[in-house]
Each structure stands twice: as C-alpha cells, then as structure tokens.
C-alpha cells in the first residue's frame, strides 16, 4: 500500500507541472514480441508496437483479431483469466510490467481503464470519483478529496453538468455522462496511461462527440490507447493507428497515412469495407 501511495504521489507531483505536448516523441509503452495464448490458442502473435507519450493510439481490426487482448495486456487485466499466458516484453517507461514482484494494483493505478459499457459504482457521483483516491490514500483529508473530485470532473468535462448534485447516484446519469464519470474516476488516481475499450459503442453521436473531444484534451496529460470498432472514430481521435488481423499486428502508422494510403492490402480491404 505504501509503495502505491508513493508512486501515486510521485505521479501527482510530476503532473502538477503539466508537460506540453512536445514534438519529440517519447515511447511510453514498448512492446516486443508479445504473444498471448488462451490455452492452446495463439491469440496474439509476435506483436512489436511502440506507444508514444501524449498520443492517442487506436487499435482497429475485425472481431477476434486480438486488439482487446492486446489492450488488456497493458495493465495485466489478462492475469485474471486462468488459461491466459502472456509471453514477451512489455515495458512502461523502461520498466517491465510483467516482472515478478511488481504490484499489479499500483500498475492499474498508473494504467487506468475505461470500458465499453459505462459502469459507475452504485454510489453517489462524488463517491464514484473519490473512491480511488481514498483507497489509494492519495488524499489526506476531506478538502483534498473534494479538490480531486472537482478537478477530475472538470477534466472529464462533467463538472458543469453535475456540480450541484454530487450526492445523487452515478447510475442516474445519462449514458454519455456515466461514461464521462467513469473517465473522471479513472483520472482521479492520476494515471499515466488510459486504456479505453470501445468507450463510445454504447453512446449516441452527441455523447460520442463529447467523449472524442475529451480524449483529444486528455492527450495533453496522458497517453491513450483506444480500441474501437468505428474506423471513423479511429480516424478522428487518434494520431497513430494499429491494424490487427487474426492475432497479427498487420500495420501501424500515422493515422492520416493509414486512412489515405495504407501499405498492406489487408488494411486497405478492412478499412474500405471489403472484408471483415
């Protein structure tokens, strides 16, 4: 617990001076020869992928291509699946996240996750956001908790809509608001990386646009990896796009190159709607 607190405090102090999105690209997450097996099934094959800091990286591909499996490797969510084996090197800031003895709880505070369906706790809006800082012991007293809740909701673009009803249940919000609440909850523990697994697939276009706008703002302070089935969304929000197919990373490139001139015929076929 203590280690976790220190790490979060360290992260907090680092983040208190927000870094501008610079031109020099720093590899935040380095993946080398990453393989995932579900029992006998080789679900992800020899993936080498660099994820850059302050960028949105979109993972696209048909269902069952391994993109969600890959996303779940990045904060060791696959650990909870018994038959799942992850082989290869995944480093966040030069630290191997599969090292034995690494505190997984601490890792998941550094690498937050937002899921497909908004899943707020059955608690008040305030408690939803305050939950993380409380259990991680980030906040020393009530006013610090209040401050974190406020800034997190502001960053998630939800403060204006909910500031006068923080005591009401989070589950009473609209779908889009619930998803932004989940994003506020994720950023309340000051992560470095935010993973998003189809965060807009249950939302209407306006709520989707708000989340997309939010993702673009969050990029300044966080590194974001997003799995999406909407190629238009990948095109809109990401700077880099990776295309997976049958467990292979087929192609990764700047998003604008991927959508104007993909190099691989499978990418071409998938994004133009010719197979999948």
């Amino acid at each position, binding site marked *: 617990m203590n280690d976790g607190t220190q790490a979060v405090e360290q992260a907090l102090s680092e983040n208190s001076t927000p870094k501008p999105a610079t031109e020099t690209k720093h590899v935040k997450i380095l993946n080398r020869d990453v393989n995932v097996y579900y029992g006998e099934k080789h679900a992800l094959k020899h993936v080498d992928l660099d994820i850059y800091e302050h960028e949105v990286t979109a993972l696209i591909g048909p269902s069952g291509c391994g993109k969600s499996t890959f996303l779940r490797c990045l904060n060791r969510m696959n650990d909870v699946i018994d038959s799942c084996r992850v082989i290869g090197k995944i480093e966040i800031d030069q630290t191997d996240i599969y090292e034995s003895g690494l505190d997984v709880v601490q890792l998941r505070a550094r690498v937050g996750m937002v899921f497909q369906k908004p899943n707020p706790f059955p608690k008040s809006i305030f408690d939803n956001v305050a939950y993380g800082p409380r259990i991680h012991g980030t906040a020393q007293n009530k006013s610090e908790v209040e401050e974190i809740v406020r800034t997190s909701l502001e960053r998630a673009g939800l403060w204006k809509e909910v500031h006068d009803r923080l005591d009401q249940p989070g589950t009473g919000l609209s779908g889009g608001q619930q998803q932004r609440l989940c994003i506020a909850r994720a950023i309340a523990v000051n992560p470095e990386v935010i993973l998003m697994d189809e965060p807009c697939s249950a939302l209407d276009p306006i709520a989707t646009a708000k989340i997309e706008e939010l993702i673009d703002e969050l990029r300044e302070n966080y590194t974001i990896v997003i799995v999406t089935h909407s190629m*238009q969304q990948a095109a809109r929000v990401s700077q880099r796009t990776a295309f997976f197919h049958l467990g292979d990373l087929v192609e990764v490139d700047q998003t604008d190159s991927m*959508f104007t*001139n993909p190099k691989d*015929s499978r990418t071409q076929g998938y994004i*133009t*709607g*010719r*197979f999948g």
Partner: protein
Amino acid sequence: MTDTQASHIVTSYEQELTRLRSAISEMGGRVEVQLTDAIRAISRRDAALAARCQAADASIDAMEDEIEELTLRMIALRQPVARDLRSILAALRISHDLERMGDYATNVAKRASALIRLPEVGPINGIARMGRLAHLVIKDVLDAYTENDVERAVNAWRRDEEIDQMYTSLFRELLTYMMEDPRNITPCAHLLFVAKNIERIGDHATNIAETIYFEETGSRLEGLRPKGDTSSFEIQGEEPADPFDLDPPGPESGSEI
C-alpha cells in the same frame, strides 16, 4: 492493385464507385469526339460540323456537374477512406480537367467557323497531325484510367512532350507564312490559337495521367515532365526580345485563349 479487385461489402457503395468510373469514361469519350470533330471541321471546312461541335460543349459541362454531385454525395454518405477516397477525389479532378479540355476543343471549333470563311492556308495538315496526336494521348490516359494501368498513364504523360514540340514547330511555320504574305496573317493567327488550344488540351491530359498515378499509388508522380514547348522563347529574325509573349513559361500558366 489486386486488393481493389475485391468488391465492397455494401453493394450500393460498389455500384456508386462503378457508376463514377463509367461517368468519367463517358465524359472522356465525349471530349475525344469534341476534339476530333473540331479538327475535322477545320480540315474539311465543314461549317455545320463546327456549329454542332460548339453546341455539344453544354453536355460535357452537364456531365461535370453530375460527377461533382455524385462525388459530393459519396463523400458525405460513405465517408470513403484509402483507395476509395483517392478514387473519388481522382474522379472529381479528372472531371475538371475533362471539362477544360472540352472548352479548348470548343474554342477550336469556334476558330474553325472563322477559318472556313477565310482563304485556306498551308499548315492545316500540321494542325490535323497535332490534333491526332493529342487525341491519341487522351485516348491513352482514358484507357489507363478504365484499366487502372499506371504504366500506360506514365507513358501517355511522357508523350505530351511530342505535342509540345509539334506546337513549337507549328508556331515557327505559321510565323513564316505570316511574313511571306500579310494576307495570311488572319487565318494563321486563328491557326496559332488552334495550336495553342490543342497544346493546352495535352497539358490537361497529363494532369489526368498524374491523377491516375496518384489514385493507383497514393503518391505523386515525381520529376518534371520534359517540356518540348520552346515557343515562349521563340524570336523571329534578330529581335532582341519578344514583346508579345504569348505563353509565359510553366505548364499551368494557361492563357485562356
């Protein structure tokens, strides 16, 4: 190009892409006819053909509008990407080039109407030759477009040099005729404009070849096309400079003659 052979999952989208390609081919066909008719009107001194040819331009303009509407709708409704996006942009660009080519051919037909009322002069054969060559280049780029044939497009792109060279030599020849006999000046001046219009048609054909290259490869055709047109620098006799520079250098400088 193998990947583009696979058809789209959404049949109506595939049909729209096919419709767009055939509209370009049809428009290209009309431009070909427009040019050959205009040239024929000059060489056969056929006033009726010249008049028909001038009237036909409206249908080419209408096709450009139709293609623009089609591309606009596809961009809005299909949100095309990658090769599909390039194809749709290419169709839009090609339709603009074809429309300009149609205009130049129509200008040639207008000159034909004037030339028919004047005494015949020598270099009409040269004009007909130049027109045939331009027609060949157009035909090649249009075939390259329908067959997605980059190599053919690049070859046609190179052949524009021949048109330019022919233009330069016609320019010299026409000047000679004008100096020989002042009565030749009026018809020769008309023929000069005709030659210039054909030369511009060739330039637009090379634009189309470049667009095809972009559509197929996603990159631009590098390097400058060898220019055979030196008429801009042409001086008769010992004149130190050409005070009536007809054609400022550069392929896109297009004087709207």
